[in-house]
């Protein structure tokens, strides 16, 4: 029997979990079918899309819903990626890969963490860093925040390059165990979207929306700006850390500069193009942009026109900004 919930807060147990369960079930049936009928290359692409959906959706918590335009998301992805990799890295390979000075706490003398705790630790560390960095940086508004968070990203990537004894510097870490797959990635996609949906339904979510509309009036309504900005920033960073960990254990090799400005741009424009005021906008943006990249990469390489994909992304972004500021799923076709 379908229970109609008239209040806009589905607070009953079933009201929360039924949509989640149904959505997850549906998602997995679809993925199951995909798994049967599609070839490996396409499944690979779909998995990559899933990782970027997590990144873009979680970024949208700050950039879209709270109105804090952050360019630092890939910094948190990097933290999540390196943390989880250092935890799951095979002991037998450590010496060969020149990762000696890892404290036993992280990996143990001859112990290799399972994927899930390693991934979660990556997310948690990213969240902790977000807490520390966010406290000063989130005082800043608009453009200042954009540049300061970009600075954070640059600081993190150069530190990853500089701290050679942990990270092997610019050469990066290879032969990472292959733990991410279609299934666990999409479980995390479901969790991310579900958690975001719950946050947006809750009091903190409404506080975030109020902050986006006007910090001054939010404050006059008694909303603690810093608390909810941090809430958004830290939750976003946690999922960024998860996305980074999934990414590392999928591509199986990471370098500091992978997480720098190109990836930032890539993730930042996903919600904008898809529709930053819609729960599924970032996912749509991620799917679209990555599908496009995989479609065009062969052409780019065959013709030797490197940069074509980014060129198209940029043109798409500017067009969206000029003619459809709400993004594809945006309601209004023109910003007010």
């Amino acid at each position, binding site marked *: 029997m379908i229970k109609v919930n008239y209040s806009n807060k589905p607070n009953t147990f079933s009201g929360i979990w039924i949509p989640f369960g149904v959505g997850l079930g549906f998602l997995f049936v679809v993925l199951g079918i995909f798994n049967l009928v599609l070839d490996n290359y396409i499944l690979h692409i779909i998995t990559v899309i899933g990782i970027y959906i997590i990144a873009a959706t979680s970024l949208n918590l700050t950039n879209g819903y709270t109105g804090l*335009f952050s360019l630092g998301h890939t910094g948190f992805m990097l933290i999540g990626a390196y943390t989880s990799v250092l935890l799951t890295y095979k002991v037998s390979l450590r010496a060969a890969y020149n990762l000696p000075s890892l404290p036993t706490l992280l990996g143990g003398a001859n112990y290799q963490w399972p994927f899930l705790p390693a991934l979660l630790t990556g997310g948690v560390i990213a969240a902790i860093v977000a807490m520390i960095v966010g406290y000063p*940086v989130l005082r800043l508004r608009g*453009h*200042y925040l954009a540049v300061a968070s*970009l*600075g*954070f990203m640059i600081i993190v990537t150069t530190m990853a390059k500089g701290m050679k004894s942990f990270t092997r510097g610019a050469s990066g870490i290879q032969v990472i165990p292959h733990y991410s797959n279609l299934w666990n990635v999409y479980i995390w996609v479901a969790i991310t979207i579900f958690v975001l949906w719950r946050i947006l339904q809750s009091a903190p979510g409404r506080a975030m929306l109020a902050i986006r509309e006007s910090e001054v009036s939010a404050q006059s309504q008694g909303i603690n700006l810093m608390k909810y900005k941090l809430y958004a920033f830290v939750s976003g960073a946690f999922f960024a850390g998860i996305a980074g960990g999934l990414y590392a254990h999928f591509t199986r090799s990471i370098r500091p500069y992978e997480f720098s400005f190109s990836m930032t741009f890539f993730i930042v424009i996903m919600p904008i193009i898809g529709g930053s005021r819609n729960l599924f906008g970032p996912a749509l943006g991620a799917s679209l942009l990555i599908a496009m990249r995989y479609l065009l990469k062969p052409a780019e390489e065959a013709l030797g026109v490197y*940069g074509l994909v*980014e060129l198209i992304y940029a043109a798409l972004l500017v067009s969206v900004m*000029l003619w459809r500021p709400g993004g594809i799923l945006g309601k209004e076709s023109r910003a007010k």
Partner: protein
Amino acid sequence: MYGASYIYQQIFNGIVLGSIYALLALGMALVYGILGLINFAHGALITIGAFCFYFLLFKFNLPFVLAIILTISLGGFVGFLSEAIGYRKLRGGPGLSLLITSLGIYIFIENAIKLLISPQPYAFFNPPFLNRIINSFITFRVIDIFIIITTIVIMICFGLFVKRSKIGIAMRGIAESVETAGLVGINVNQVITWSFVVASAIAALTGFMWGAKYGQISYNMGFMPGVIAFVAVVIGGIGSIPGAVLGGFLIGLIQIFTVGFLPLGWSVYRDAIVFTLLIIVLLIKPMGILGRRESM
């Protein structure tokens, strides 16, 4: 520990790098003062200027002065285009839409250069007279002196332009209130276009300077200097053009000192240090060193 000559050498190098940042910051401060926009696309003009000069001088063998003039003109023209296509329609809308669009324009130009010219860096050769080495108390090339003198000349001209000329005064007026500017009879669009043209033309010239000084140009060379220029604007004090210049020199010196005086492993952090400084300044003195709330 360090000899006096070494220290002066570092200061000199810092001033040369600082000159470039200061010129970039000048244009950035102008545009920020008027539109409240961090123009990420400003950095792309560096790249455009560098490649434009490279092709004019080495492929088409134009005379040096002509190549410089054409480079500056192209920079101004690209500034005009980006304003007309990208920003004009979005002005007065949500604050961040300009910023996001400028990111898009930056990426567009960067990848257009990557696609049309090369994904590989080019070696940038100087005309021989700029490479002459002068060895005295400190060692430098003619290009270093060229950069410093050009910077001083541009700053004086720019100062006079903003202070004295009708359009310069109008720029400051618009920075204060676009509505009032319109109702007293200022053609606001035209003046804003001019500010982009001037800022972009200067940025294109710094592209040549960068190539001539550091000997290598690439499609993504402009990003970091562009962002650092904005940091200079913030550190110097948003809204203050002298502040932006000061910020530029300060960052130039700090970066050179990071490389010149700190242990070897630290040089990786020369950009990171700039941003750390930015965050500290924003927290301690959000108005920057010379910043006042209102004026340019």
